[in-house]
């Protein structure tokens, strides 16, 4: 198993760095070409979310991302220092994106989409998804199958 860990200052510019790394490593790990857009988007959402959490918390904690290539699976873990208010399983189960999207239109301008929206997009994209939160941090884990093998990442 080969692993790449990236930790970065919680600024939005580095979400692009994280996406770039995840895309390159996923490709090398053998994630199917047609799945790479999804990896890029899901990793971007997870990292954006983590950066947002850290900016609200203040402090200088980096966001951590770990990419692992384990035989026939490629997994990405994104860890932030925030805690979810609600049970993560509940958050994911409850979100109805279509309902959220239409409701978003009724709210007053300041146009940020509701919190939880990023996570909901991830759950719409990634089948094998886990969100775990303890008292100190939240960890989003996304797994994709790998198809071709080119000798490890």
């Amino acid at each position, binding site marked *: 198993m080969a692993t790449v860990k990236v930790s970065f200052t919680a600024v*939005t*510019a580095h*979400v*692009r760095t994280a*996406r770039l790394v995840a895309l390159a490593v996923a490709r090398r790990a053998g994630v199917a070409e047609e799945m790479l*857009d999804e990896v*890029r*988007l899901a990793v*971007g*959402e997870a990292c*954006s979310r983590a*950066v*947002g959490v850290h900016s609200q918390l203040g402090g200088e904690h980096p966001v951590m991302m770990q990419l692992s290539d384990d035989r026939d699976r490629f997994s990405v873990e994104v860890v932030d220092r925030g805690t979810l208010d609600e049970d993560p399983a509940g958050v994911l189960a409850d979100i109805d*994106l*279509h*309902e*959220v*999207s*239409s409701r*978003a*239109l009724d709210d007053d*301008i*300041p*146009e*940020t*989409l509701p919190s939880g*929206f*990023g996570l*909901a*997009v991830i759950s*719409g*994209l990634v089948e094998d998804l886990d969100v775990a939160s303890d008292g100190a941090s939240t960890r989003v884990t996304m797994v994709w199958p790998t198809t071709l093998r080119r000798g490890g990442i």
Partner: protein
Amino acid sequence: MDPDLSVAIRSEGDRTVVAVSGEIDVYTAPKLREHLIDLVSGGHYQLVVDLEGVDFLDSTGLGVLVGGLKRVRAHDGSLHLVCSQDRILKIFRITGLTKVFPIHASVTEALSADA
């Protein structure tokens, strides 16, 4: 100047076409938001946002487009999108925003649709 996102604005009759290219994400979305706010402040309420040059769009970008839509609606305006790329359409579909935005395959088509 930010090579990561560029925005070109032109008038077509009473419509304003906003052609965006690059990546609309958590880093660049604020720039697009400013452009949309400026347009609405300047009295441009019939917008066509052309996403054909966009190669990445995340939920923050969606939020900015939704915000733009709300702003123009507050003036009885409209915000049409131009997008024929599957990978960009996908995030509109996942989020149900295909029901919220009129999405066209070309600028010509968007301009000939009712504002």
